[in-house]
């Protein structure tokens, strides 16, 4: 390296180059500052939104508020309000404020990994626009809050599973019983075989009768018996018809008998009357007949 008389490296036009370097650096600094200010929304017109949350854990100044995943605002200030709640002041650029409506809902979600997320949800985009300086409650959602309860439940569940699957558990005993029941030599298998044979017999030529009696000879006998029974029944039906006719005659005879009996009653009453008259006549004769002995008159 060439060196100048004052022991420094010999560089052509050092002052110009140094000035150029400094000017470029200064320009870069100014450009970067303007860029960062633009990125932070310093030159944008904003409208303010006050979100009231139970607490501000995980919320930092500069944090984004997103709508459908896109940042539309940022937290500009956090303070503890007089009501003991966290007041999150959110600056929303006017060009993005159209996504916020009077019916918009705001949530603060705390994830397991990373910081909290402030989200806005608008169900009715044709609703009234959210006014500047509006105050809204924030719905809190904490993904980790349910973890202890979840762990406790899972622990109980695992305990129950262990008890269920232990060797002395009822489930294992039931499974053993089921296994024994479904073994090839088991009673259930035998019953199933019998049932299968029974159904096969039911589907056979003689159906249920064959299944009940077991052999064709008995079935033939039963069928013969049934045939004979049918003939007997036919004859019995004919006999009954005759009996019916006889009964009609008997009924007529009975009617006649009833009439005769009634006549007999009248006859007997007349006979009694006559007999009393005869008895009175005999009494008169006895009184009138001096030698007459008292005789007992016997009625038939």
């Amino acid at each position, binding site marked *: 390296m060439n060196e*100048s008389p*004052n*022991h*420094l*490296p010999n*560089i052509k036009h*050092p*002052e110009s*180059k*140094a*000035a150029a*370097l*400094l000017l*470029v*650096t200064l320009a*870069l*600094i100014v450009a*970067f*500052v303007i*860029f*960062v200010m*633009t*990125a*932070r*929304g310093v030159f944008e017109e904003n409208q303010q939104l006050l979100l009231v949350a139970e607490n501000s854990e995980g919320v930092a*100044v*500069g944090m*984004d508020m997103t709508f459908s995943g896109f*940042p539309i605002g*940022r937290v500009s200030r956090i303070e503890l309000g007089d009501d003991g709640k966290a007041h999150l002041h959110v600056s929303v650029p006017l060009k993005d404020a159209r996504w916020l409506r009077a019916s918009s809902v705001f949530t603060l979600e705390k994830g397991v*990994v*990373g910081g909290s997320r402030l989200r806005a949800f608008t169900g009715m985009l044709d609703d009234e626009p959210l006014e500047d300086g509006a105050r809204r409650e924030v719905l809190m959602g904490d993904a980790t809050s349910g973890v202890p309860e979840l762990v406790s439940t899972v622990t109980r569940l695992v305990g129950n599973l262990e008890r269920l699957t232990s060797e002395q558990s009822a489930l294992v005993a039931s499974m053993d019983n089921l296994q024994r029941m479904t073994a090839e030599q088991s009673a259930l298998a035998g019953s199933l075989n019998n049932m299968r044979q029974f159904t096969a017999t039911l589907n056979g030529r003689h159906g249920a009768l064959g299944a009940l009696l077991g052999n064709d000879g008995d079935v033939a006998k039963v069928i013969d018996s049934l045939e004979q029974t049918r003939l007997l029944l036919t004859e019995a039906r004919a006999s009954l018809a005759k009996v019916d006719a006889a009964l009609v005659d008997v009924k007529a005879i009975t009617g006649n008998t009833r009439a005769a009996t009634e006549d007999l009653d009248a006859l007997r009453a007349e006979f009694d009357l006559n007999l009393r008259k005869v008895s009175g006549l005999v009494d008169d004769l006895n009184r009138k007949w001096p030698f007459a002995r008292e005789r007992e008159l016997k009625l038939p």
Partner: protein
Amino acid sequence: MAQPLQQLFPLIRRSGLTGWLAGQYRYLSFAALLLIASVSPSIHDQATRRRSASILCCAAWQTLPGYLLACVLLSAILTRIVAVSADSYGLSHLALEAILRVFVVELLPLASTLFVAMRAVPMAMLHLAALPGQPGAGLRDALPYAVGNAAAVVILAIVGGIVSLLVAYPVVHGFNQWGLPAYTRLIGQVFDPILAIAFSAKILFFGIAVGIAPATVVLDPRKYDTGQREMRVMVRLLLILVLIEGSFLMLRRF
């Protein structure tokens, strides 16, 4: 208290605690004088400005291409590693923020400082360390090194940081413009006013350290050889850098 200090520091053992404190006071006074002189326009005459410009060109102009190339490669590789690692854990949305906060804000200023120091210290040793029997260099001789090296650190840190920001985007999003709004917003989020002030102050302090530490070689005893004196300057510089970095880490907690 003096006994353990004497065991720890050989200089204290040789000259005593008072002598050691007096020596440190000399260094601090010299650093303060350099600092005041560097912001005093009357001292910067034509010759001093020319020497400052030469040292700045030597530390920044000549090293700029190599430094930028190293910045581009390092930032591309680191960004790719962080992006792939974050993606494998489902945290890809945090990759760029991690790159900005760790590489651009923390590592790059330190890298540019060491890059300048590696060139500035030997040059200062060559030109400021007086040989035994020769008259030593004075404040006016050391001033161009302080100004030139400090400006070189600031220039390299700023240029390197912006180049890294430009490289990180295509590595993560590719060459399309659809991720630009989110990336712009992320840069705005990371460089909040407090971090921007801390970042600027850190670069400035690093520059001052690299400017002053090599210049203090004019105060070192002449009995040491060049290698020992260079080692003393490097240790001094590293100690100052560690103090600055530790101070900023502590300030971040408050």
